[in-house]
């Protein structure tokens, strides 16, 4: 077969709907003007309908422009020098050799940032580290050059003198009050939450058996196919336009305003189709530094992360260490549950507070438990920043409470499905924080799943309504 045969010759004639009009544009989508406010559990006409994504056409044509696909005349390329050490004092930064390189147009460091701190809640993150390094991915300098290659070479010419400090790497060590503060004089525990209901010790005393287990999850990186990318440029009226892969552009705009010390009205954040976010593009990275490089050079400046930078210089999912203690009846009904969560909060707070809250509230699982004590801590370590990632702490606790449930079921010789049906939320059940739950279909979902997997047909289950 001749591989170079034009495809059009080999195919049967396509229907007219396949014919493109030139130029290729996505079809206009009409949005309904009335807003539907559905009743709880009411079937809306949209559910079950197939809808064609409007962006699919340009994606398939390769015409979608992501941030790295934009080029502006005179654009410079920036690279960030990463610390490469987990914890250190910065004694000096010498950028002179880099600045003298042909093709290097500007170099900035932390001292050039008007307000060198930002963050979605705690403002503990620097744009570029100036006196202290808190994790190996910290940026210590930013270079703008005429090619990406020259910018990367210039990083090697920047000389940084570090006084290496002992890093705190184990979150359980960080939890101890005697461990030196990563962000001293601030404590290592920077977030704490307790949920209390009933009397958990009394419940344990009345239990047939008490089970304990410790569960750990690892740090995970989002790995969006598209690395972080930003382009910054100024207009003659002193406004900066920042094109970015950032998801939360209003938040980003506020952070850029804060770090640059300029009003928000002077900042345009332009985002477009993002090549994967999953929570990892929820806060600014190089935007303020690029804005300053652009200001200094008078030219647009672009920076894209390398794939390794995605791993060590962008946010990741919090590792969790989860201690579970459950008191159960002989039939497997949970009478009381006590939980301690320790979140590895990395070098900066980022979205840790949200993660802490969600993990804590949902740590008990979708089960009716009258007596609860769940306590969660998030601690600083000198490791990669931990931030938002799909689920905000819930995937981690789900691993824990479901593993714990399976272990209890095995020990009591109860079918894993039955023990869950016995304890699961129902319509009107109260969440651990006493929210009355509506549209609860936990049991129905479990039973339907069991039927589809052939759970009882394969010899599992002893009843309790499980259908085969």
């Amino acid at each position, binding site marked *: 077969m001749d591989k170079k045969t034009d495809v059009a010759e080999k195919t049967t004639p396509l229907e007219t709907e396949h014919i493109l009009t030139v130029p290729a544009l996505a079809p206009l989508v009409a949005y309904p003007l009335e807003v539907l406010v559905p009743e709880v559990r009411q079937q809306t006409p949209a559910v079950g309908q197939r809808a064609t994504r409007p962006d699919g056409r340009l994606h398939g044509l390769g015409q979608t422009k992501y941030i790295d696909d934009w080029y502006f005349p005179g654009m410079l390329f920036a690279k960030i020098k990463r610390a490469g050490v987990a914890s250190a004092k910065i004694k000096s930064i010498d950028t002179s050799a880099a600045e003298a390189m042909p093709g290097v147009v500007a170099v900035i460091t932390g001292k050039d940032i008007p307000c060198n701190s930002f963050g979605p809640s705690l403002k503990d993150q620097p744009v570029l580290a100036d006196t202290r390094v808190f994790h190996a991915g910290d940026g210590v300098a930013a270079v703008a050059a005429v090619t990406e*290659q020259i910018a*990367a*070479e210039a990083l*090697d010419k920047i000389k940084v003198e570090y006084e290496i400090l002992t890093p705190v790497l184990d979150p359980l060590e960080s939890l101890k009050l005697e461990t030196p503060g990563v962000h001293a004089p601030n404590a290592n525990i920077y977030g704490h939450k307790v949920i209390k209901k009933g009397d958990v010790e009394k419940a344990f005393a009345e239990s047939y058996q008490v089970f304990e287990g410790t569960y750990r999850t690892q740090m995970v990186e989002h790995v969006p196919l598209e690395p972080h990318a930003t382009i910054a440029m100024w207009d003659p009226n002193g406004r900066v336009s920042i094109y970015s892969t950032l998801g939360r552009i209003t938040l980003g705009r506020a952070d850029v305003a804060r770090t640059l010390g300029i009003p928000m009205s002077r900042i345009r954040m332009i985002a477009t189709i993002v090549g994967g976010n999953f929570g990892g593009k929820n806060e600014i990275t190089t935007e303020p530094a690029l804005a300053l490089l652009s200001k200094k050079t008078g030219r647009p400046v672009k920076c894209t992360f*390398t794939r*390794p930078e995605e791993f060590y210089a962008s946010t990741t999912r919090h590792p969790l260490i989860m201690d579970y203690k459950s008191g159960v009846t002989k039939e497997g009904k949970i009478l009381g549950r006590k939980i301690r969560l320790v979140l590895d909060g990395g070098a900066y707070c980022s979205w840790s507070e949200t993660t802490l809250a969600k993990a804590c509230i949902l740590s008990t699982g979708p089960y009716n438990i009258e007596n609860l004590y769940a306590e969660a801590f998030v601690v600083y370590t000198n490791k990669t920043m931990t931030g938002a990632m799909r689920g905000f702490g819930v995937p981690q606790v789900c691993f824990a409470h479901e593993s714990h449930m399976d272990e209890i079921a095995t020990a009591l010789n109860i079918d894993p499905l039955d023990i869950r049906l016995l304890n699961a939320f129902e319509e009107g059940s109260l969440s651990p924080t006493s929210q009355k739950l509506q549209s609860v279909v936990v049991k129905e979902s479990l039973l339907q799943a069991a039927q589809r997997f052939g759970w009882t047909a394969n010899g599992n289950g002893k009843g309790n309504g499980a259908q085969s």
Partner: protein
Amino acid sequence: MRGFELVTARDSRHAVALLAQHSASAKVKVIAGGTDLMADLHFSSHIPDIVVDISRAEDLKHIAVTEEGLSIGALVTHTQIMRSPLIRDMFPALVDAAHTIGAVQTRNLGTLGGNLVTGVPSMDSGPTLVALEAVVSIAGPDGRRQVPLAEFWLGPRKTVLKPDELLAEIIIPKQNLNKPTHFLKFGLRKGQALALVNVASSFRVDWDKNVFVAPRIALGAVAPKVIRALKAEAFLEGRKVTPETMAEAGQVAVGDAKPISDFRASAEYRKDLVAVLTKRTLEGAYELAKAKR
């Protein structure tokens, strides 16, 4: 990455001449498919001064039976190995091994020679060729020299190649043509995975006595280079071909292996894999022997 000078070789002799010319005074690297070199260079601070592009040397792209045996040019890609009717017929194990390397895109670029010269102990092309007692033909300024493949590597990423030499051909000796061989790789994924352990077993059968003849077993990723499982081979020679002997040979092969523990697997798990994969490759080679009888 930082810049380098690029010179393109017309054929293997020109390539050797370029290496001889430049390697004395500059850091020189050879590029064929680029799947190892380019990946290294994109994040390396050790950029060569000169890169010699040999990808256009048509005289290194053959697959042919010669009077020496089966000769495979160093620039034959993994895809070409998978598709060669000659190799598919004679050595399905080489096809299997090539198929486990990377993905379609890397197999279209990556070459057999490159895989061998990069020299990581977990290389997927190595074990089958070592089990088949392959010999490599090295081209230098004074002509060709041959080295048994098992002696080609000095350690991880180190070969006997001198700076002005080029791996030109891989030859499976005549007496091993059509020898039943089976290869298995165990990685943490089904694609784009490094081998935790890979094994190739090759033997003929004396059908009258039903015993192993010339058994050869090669182990990868369990030593600083691809090694022969000599104890297991000695155990099998002349022994009856039965499932029990094959299983026991697997256990003996564990004694030939010296795996390390790393973040992918423990040494204990790798030893376990050696026993299982040796047994299974022996079984696979036996199936092939029966089919070809």
